[in-house]
């Protein structure tokens, strides 16, 4: 493995911090009743999307999950438009129609978070297929958890990608739970690497709380997919800190497990590394912290200051052929 460039190591940390602070703020806003519907936070899991997306180019695409804020931020999303979407505002990525579970950014190659388990994986295979058909070297990445792995859609996607040798990177983000029950309720093998073997898909398991380990695996997997080697799978074992959704009191989790969450903190780990390597001191950390906090605060301010979706906006964007769609989309661009 090549050394990771110092700048990138710093950026990995910053991206994780951006996800963390965005989601903490989201949790607070939700608790305060400022966000409608329900939200799933990925606090504790930031290393996975961060490490993966750092290995991607702008043209590459991802499909995210119901717990997708991190994936989408790591792919470069604007925090303001994300927050606006969570608030149901007109300026949100979905003009307030989708909410937290349905954030798309076609420009950034975000082909949707998804409220249906196992649906994003076939879609990602299609993105890989069109790359092949178009002669592009675009790579398609799809995130899913242990719960989703029980879905037929994930199976059909892996099989199809393998039969057609498509440039798809399957990222199994294993956080120990699917809703309120643990891994072994959903999967019969110790690791998704075993599952990948059932399709002949090369796979690797990495410490999903180590952003550099994730990044290195991603670089290798993405390179393989990009160069025509067919699909790969990366299992990243990580830790969900919050409940399945905000409001879930996690009574089903052992107390020791809940108490030791911070031991796995991917941010602390990366910060310590950067400090040890002399890349960052206390002051540097503070600067980053302030920058991110400010960015999140701006996002919240943007969301709050944005116009509510007008009731009749509900009628827009059902059909492309009605023409209303294009106009509507243009309006929400900042």
């Amino acid at each position, binding site marked *: 493995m090549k050394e990771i460039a110092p700048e990138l190591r710093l950026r990995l940390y910053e991206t994780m911090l951006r996800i963390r602070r965005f989601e903490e703020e989201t949790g607070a806003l939700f608790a305060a009743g400022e966000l*409608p*519907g*329900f939200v799933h936070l990925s606090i504790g899991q930031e290393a996975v999307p961060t490490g993966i997306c750092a290995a991607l180019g702008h043209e590459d695409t991802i499909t995210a999950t119901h717990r997708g804020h991190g994936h989408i931020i790591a792919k470069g999303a604007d925090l303001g438009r994300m927050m606006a979407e969570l608030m*149901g*505002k007109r300026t949100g990525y*979905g003009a*307030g*129609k*989708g*909410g937290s*579970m*349905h954030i798309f950014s076609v420009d950034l190659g975000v082909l949707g978070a*998804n*409220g*249906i*388990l*196992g649906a994003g994986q076939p879609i990602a295979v299609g993105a890989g297929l069109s790359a092949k058909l178009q002669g592009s070297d675009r790579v398609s990445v799809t995130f899913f958890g242990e*719960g*989703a792995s*029980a*879905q*037929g*859609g994930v199976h059909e996607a892996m099989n199809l990608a393998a039969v057609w040798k498509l440039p798809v990177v399957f990222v199994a983000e294993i956080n120990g739970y*699917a*809703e*309120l*029950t643990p891994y072994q*309720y*959903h*999967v019969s093998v110790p690791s998704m690497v075993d599952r990948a073997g059932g399709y002949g898909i090369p796979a690797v398991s990495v410490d999903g709380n180590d952003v550099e380990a994730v990044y290195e695996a991603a670089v290798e997997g993405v390179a393989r997919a990009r160069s025509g080697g067919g699909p790969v799978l990366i299992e990243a074992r990580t830790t969900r800190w919050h409940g*399945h959704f905000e409001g879930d009191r996690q*009574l*089903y989790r052992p107390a020791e497990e809940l108490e030791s969450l911070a031991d796995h903190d991917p941010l602390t780990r990366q910060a310590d590394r950067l400090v040890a390597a002399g890349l960052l001191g206390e002051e540097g950390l503070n600067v980053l912290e302030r920058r991110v906090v400010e960015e999140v605060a701006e996002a919240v301010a943007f969301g709050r200051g944005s116009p*509510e*979706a*007008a*009731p*009749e*906006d*509900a*009628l827009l964007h*059902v059909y492309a052929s009605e023409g209303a769609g294009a106009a509507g989309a243009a309006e929400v661009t900042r």
Partner: protein
Amino acid sequence: MKYHAAMREALRCELERDPAVFFMGEDVGLPGGIFAQSRGLYEEFGAERVRDTPAGELGFMGAAVGAALTGSRPVVEISFADFFMTCIDQLVNQAAKIRYMSGGQAKVPLTVITFGGAGRNAGPQHSGSYEAWLGSVPGLRVVMPSTPHDVQGLLKAAIRSDDPTIVILNKALLGIADDSEPGVEPIPFGKAVVRREGEHVTIVAWSAMVQTALEAADILAAEDGVSCEVIDLRSIQPLDGELLGASARKTGRVVTVQETVTFAGIGAEVAAEVSRRAFGWLDAPVQIVGPPFTPVPFAPAMEGFVLPGVGSIVGAVREIL
């Protein structure tokens, strides 16, 4: 009793009554359900009969069909009705048709409970109900209780029925309560109920829209002196055509109200039924009230706009007076 407690109560009663009954779904066991709808059942009946499933509906719905074919009486929860889309083959091509294809040899005593309905800002993929789809499948029964009392009665009837039956509960009703006690008797399928008697107009509603219809009736009585009869369908398949026809013949005017898009929906079916049974008595076309033809949007202002409220019902009634 509360709406979700009524579900639990009916389950408890049936699990106790019949050892062939078991209950399964995502998080319904040890965690007690994401709406606390099954809390305590796991402790009472154990992990075999109150069973947490993997997050793969096609697998466990199919397993329910297979268990029903081999002497068990499975009750399956699909937490959101939208997730039917991942396992609907087992309902439509299997459960519903097996008795028929087997020439009457087999029965499929399967009950499916789901939470449908919008109004909770749950967004486009968590707000569906699909009663028109499932109701149109020969071999399936579909019921939609609007009160805790009816949750108990219809769910018990479903579990005791030898036919595959879908019980669609409504998320928006999770908070409601009535004065029903444990021990409600099973309610026969195909029986609608008059929630309010009236003379001038019949309003047909089901599930969460029943309450909205009753409120509209209050307003119409107070402001217009119009007396509305409000019918709660309760049973979608079969429909209570007799009661619908009788009420339409009495009032001569019918308004239906639903929270799902109206295209080829239950409102259209009710209108067809009413038209067959009471055409000569009708003074106006049946008004079918429902949302515009869009997915259910997330943002409260937009979701509120698409869902029919008291105002739309009042407006529809006034239009045909």
